[in-house]
């Protein structure tokens, strides 16, 4: 259903590290879940529109009035690392 390579590919897309053990366990578990999900492929859905929103709402507009946003120090208060009044991260190219 889903093989080891696909699990590794999806984990890369999701920015999720998996140990060797986890890769084999997920391969089995995800296959079982996907098999259950496959049930929907049996339905004839030609011409059925997708539901993107369950309750009809017209465009939700509000007046475009400026209002204060979070002060910088508050926005940074929970950050694991702060440098120069901004979020600090390791280099993308190191």
């Amino acid at each position, binding site marked *: 259903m889903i093989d080891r390579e696909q699990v590794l590919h999806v984990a890369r897309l*999701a920015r999720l590290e998996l140990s060797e053990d986890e890769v084999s366990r997920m391969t089995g578990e995800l296959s079982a879940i996907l098999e259950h999900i496959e049930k929907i492929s049996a*339905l004839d859905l030609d011409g059925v529109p997708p539901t993107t929103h369950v309750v009809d709402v017209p465009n939700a507009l509000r007046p475009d009035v400026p209002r204060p946003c979070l002060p910088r120090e508050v926005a940074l208060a929970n950050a694991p690392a702060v440098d120069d009044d901004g979020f600090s991260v390791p280099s*993308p190219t190191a």
Partner: protein
Amino acid sequence: MSDIVALTAAQAAAAVGKGDLDPGELFEAYRARAAADDLNAFVWVAGEDATRANGAGGAGGASPLGGVPLGVKDLFCTEGVPSQAGSKILEDYRPPYTATVVRKLAEAGAPLLGKTNQDEFAMGSSNENSAFGPVLNPWDRGRVPGGSSGGSAAAVAAGTAPWAIGTDTGGSIRQPAALCGIVGLKPTYGSCSRFGMIAFASSLDQAGPLTRDVTDAALLFGHMVGRDDRDATSIQFPEEVRRPTAQRLDGIRLGVPDDLTGEGVEPGVMARFEATLQIARDLGATVERVPLPHADYGLSAYYVLAPAEASSNLARFDGVRYGLRRDADDLLTMYTKTRHDGFGPEVRRRILIGTYALSSGYYDAYYGRAQRVRTKIADDFRSAFERVDLIVTPTSPGVAFELGAKTADPLAMYLNDYFTVPMPLAGIPAISIPCGLSEDLPVGFQLAGPAFSENRILDAAYALEQAIGFDNSPARA
């Protein structure tokens, strides 16, 4: 007031309003009980300073909710108070703002009592997926309380909170309410603002009350609804939420889904369900079978849509702006290590399913098809509600199961949601009320109606509740 905890929230609010009960005494009675909670239902409890703030002369006395304190599921953001969504990746996260529904309830006189335990990011049906440990069911401490709002349900059942709020994406209010012998309402999508709710699956998530009885649910829900500029999917509730008063069900047509034959449902649960249908008939309701031909596909569609939306929503937890970070020399390794260590196994599993379902080449086969199934399910309900007023089912196929019984098999755990998943897919409201015991454990009875039919649902649930006479006091002993 000798036995504060014996009062329902509505009774306590009324006693405060009449001056018979001091709101500070009320708050402290529950604060002390919550602080001594031994079910692991709370992950944070207000301090004694909160009792002083909520005492006589505080907000309680003249307010509609009387100062009756509120248990709040951990995934609601509360300013300056830990809001961790049951996840290690948000351990000790203290948000700079408060969720709209929590703010509205506090303003109406239901101050924050504590934050309640939950399955991580609301993913689970047993509360065993919390980074802060499982919650125990007060009816039997060897069993789960249900999930994902398991802490809120257990706290209300055990009387360590007079009432609480939770969120429901595929059953996360109704199923734990059923397993703990209390009332849980999942409102129409859009009734309550999602602003400040840490998102799981945005097109399905709704906040709602978990309470000791139907009257408390109506009272709390009435102060949660309303359009919010900060949630573009929120809608003004079209009528006032009324306190339910119905004693009879004359003329009410109840529909039982065609495919509900008892297969896959515990015999004791089915027996309580049938007995409740008889009570409904005795109160004047008619019961008929209704076709819901696509309900059986609900679970499959749900386990595409919810993980897909979750994989997108949970992309924000990357160790940059808040929460856990695992240090590394380069950015990509920092992301992957942080997310590996911060998320528990079920969350990782769902992120992977969701990412797979949304990945190039698979989108149409999974997410696109699931959205079409969603349309069919909503159409089924629309047709059914031309024939009946409310659709009824058992809330959960079984009673509370033993801790650890289903953790090894994710799919078996998902089947718990069989009866609760179709309603959020269609955006419609549903309530679970206790309808008796099976094997000495509570059984839930679910009533669902069309969008914005909460008043009708609450009325029918109230009439049934009076006739059933379920005794929930053993859980508070």
